[in-house]
């Protein structure tokens, strides 16, 4: 009995000592939840984990006594698998912050869990603008891009250039639906007309049936509301079926540099689309990208999703460093992150709005002709820039409850 009591006392003392140590708790655990094996793994995947690793190294927090752990997992583009991993990460492994989380279906599911458990998500990979609209959360920051911004920039530019009739080829899940909805709204508002839509299952390999339907519609613009491997296959097969040769124009609503690289300039030339990061924008982006590509297995340049992981973590590290410790209250950290302006080498100066939307400029690029490209990965010409405060959905249109009107 005596032994039991002394053991109990000892245990209590330990617990107290541990909670005393919590006052200066300088432990962080970062979880990169991404597609490591499927159709989006080139634009996120291992590159996102590398970007997080580089951010940890560059932050200099280790020298200040912080202990930062990094874990990564493959969600296989399945919301159920993603939430299982996320739940385990939060409950068992004590992960503080989720990075990347590409795929809108996955992101919306994890978004709810992160809110429920008061963790943090800096989403750099998913596109759905719902993350900062109706589904917004005090624990989530949407960092890189969203469907509203893509629609606004690319959609408006194409309608202005005369593309006033549209046919959509849409990936049949949350992301495709959001991108189609947001683009259709911009097209209609700018005076264009939507002629039709066809929805294909995610990760299809043959698009000829869908392309024939788009061709038969005689729409001037075939809008591709899909991403990754789906988009590259659509573009490749569209050229086979003479879509562009027949006078219709392809609009890549969401394209990444890894897609252009995979298509090759011969097929991709002339496509115009919007991104918020390109490795060859300025000296800072070039320096980072060079370091990044040297550490990538296939020597790839960073996509905007991967660059966003780095940029988001840099701002997160600055915030927790200023707090001095105890970075485990998700809402509190995110509030502090929103209060401070952002500044990092990749996305420049920016801000985070009350709804969790990170603001920075959006760039309209056009893919170079093979003759214009000076070397590997030299793919884009900048043809227009939308400033950060105009690129995204205005707060006045927001349905997010966090926005005070």
């Amino acid at each position, binding site marked *: 009995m005596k032994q039991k009591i002394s053991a109990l006392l000892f245990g209590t003392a330990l617990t107290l000592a541990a909670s005393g140590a919590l006052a200066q708790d300088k432990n962080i655990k970062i979880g990169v939840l991404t597609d490591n094996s499927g159709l989006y793994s080139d634009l996120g995947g291992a590159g996102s984990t590398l970007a997080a690793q580089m951010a940890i190294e560059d932050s200099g927090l280790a020298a200040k006594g912080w202990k930062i752990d990094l874990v990564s997992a493959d969600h296989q583009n399945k919301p159920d698998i993603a939430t299982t991993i996320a739940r385990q990460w939060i409950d068992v492994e004590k992960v503080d912050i989720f990075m990347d989380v590409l795929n809108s279906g996955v992101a919306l599911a994890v978004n709810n869990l992160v809110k429920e458990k008061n963790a943090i998500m800096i989403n750099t990979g998913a596109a759905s603008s719902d993350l900062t609209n109706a589904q917004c959360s005090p624990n989530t920051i949407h960092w890189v891009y969203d469907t509203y911004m893509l629609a606004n920039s690319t959609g408006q530019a194409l309608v202005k250039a005369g593309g006033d009739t549209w046919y959509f080829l849409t990936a*049949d899940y949350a992301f495709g639906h959001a991108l189609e909805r947001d683009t259709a709204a911009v097209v209609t508002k700018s005076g264009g007309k939507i002629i039709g839509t066809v929805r294909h299952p995610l990760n299809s390999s043959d698009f000829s*049936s869908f392309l024939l339907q788009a061709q038969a519609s005689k729409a001037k613009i075939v809008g591709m509301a899909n991403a990754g491997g789906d988009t590259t296959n659509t573009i*490749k097969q569209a050229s086979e079926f*003479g879509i562009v040769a027949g006078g219709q124009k392809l609009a890549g609503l969401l394209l990444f540099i890894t897609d252009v690289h*995979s298509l090759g300039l011969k097929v991709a030339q002339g496509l115009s689309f919007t991104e918020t990061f390109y490795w060859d924008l300025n000296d800072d982006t070039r320096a980072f990208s060079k370091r990044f590509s040297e550490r990538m297995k296939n020597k790839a340049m960073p996509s905007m999703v991967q660059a966003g992981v780095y940029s988001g973590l840099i701002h997160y590290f600055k915030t927790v460093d200023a707090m001095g410790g105890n970075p485990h209250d998700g809402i509190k950290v995110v509030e502090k992150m929103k209060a401070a302006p952002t500044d990092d080498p990749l996305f420049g100066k920016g801000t985070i709005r009350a709804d969790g939307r990170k603001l920075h400029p959006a760039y309209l690029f056009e893919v170079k002709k093979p003759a214009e490209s000076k070397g590997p990965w030299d793919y884009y010409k900048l043809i227009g820039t939308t400033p950060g405060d105009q690129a995204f959905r205005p707060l006045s249109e927001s349905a997010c409850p966090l926005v005070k009107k």
Partner: protein
Amino acid sequence: MQALYAQLLVGLINGSFYALLSLGLAVIFGMLNIINFAHGALYMMGAFCAYFLLNLAGIGYWPALIIAPIVVGIFGMILERTMLQWLSGLDHLYGLLLTFGIALIVQGVFQNYFGSSGLPYAIPDELKGGMNLGFMFLPIYRGWVVVFSLIVCLATWYLIEKTRLGANLRAATENPTLVRAFGINVPRMITLTYGLGVGLAALAGVLSAPINQVRPLMGADLIIVVFAVVVIGGMGSIMGSIITGFSLGVIEGLTKYFYPEASNTVVFVLMVLVLLVKPTGLTGRAA
């Protein structure tokens, strides 16, 4: 109505890939009794082989149509000699698990080095462009795929069902000991048959390289559908898998037109229906 014709033709094109792949599976299952889950990975290797031939050795599409199936076929024969042959006589499950594991390893290795987005492979100059059929614009390359795979399918059927070599082969699966007594080297014949089935997969890979991106996962996406085709056609039936391959392509094409959201599932719905009504498949005989 015009759109319908177009969809039928497009379905036929996809059907030719299903037919080529399921034919290889049927040959392997019929003769070796192995459920070859590595088929998708071998199809992918065929496409990559064509890519390497072009980019490393400057060898174009036409020679690749012959070289790639031979190279991948030899790889398959090595697999058979070193691993698969030890499984003969065991439950089907062992072969399935082994080949599935091989597929995962092969795909993992390729993905590690080449990523998931894939590599470009251009259509050969002779087959570029297309013709206007009135109801649709048919890319010449797609037309070529249908004609060529139909010829290959029928040739394989003829080889196995109508020639002496094929007769020996079929006899060897029925009763290997007796066939050996006639002085025929049965193990070698089995190895060559596996090589033939694998070569067919690689051939389909080369054919699809200019249409799809050459991607490490291109086979993984396709293999499940192809297995459904084999099951519907009747396991191991050569003609059954050819006919089912083409007709399922057409049915899938029609689904893409009438109800695109279901185009990924229609094949499996059919599979369930066929299994409920006729568990041996459309052309299969009860064992």
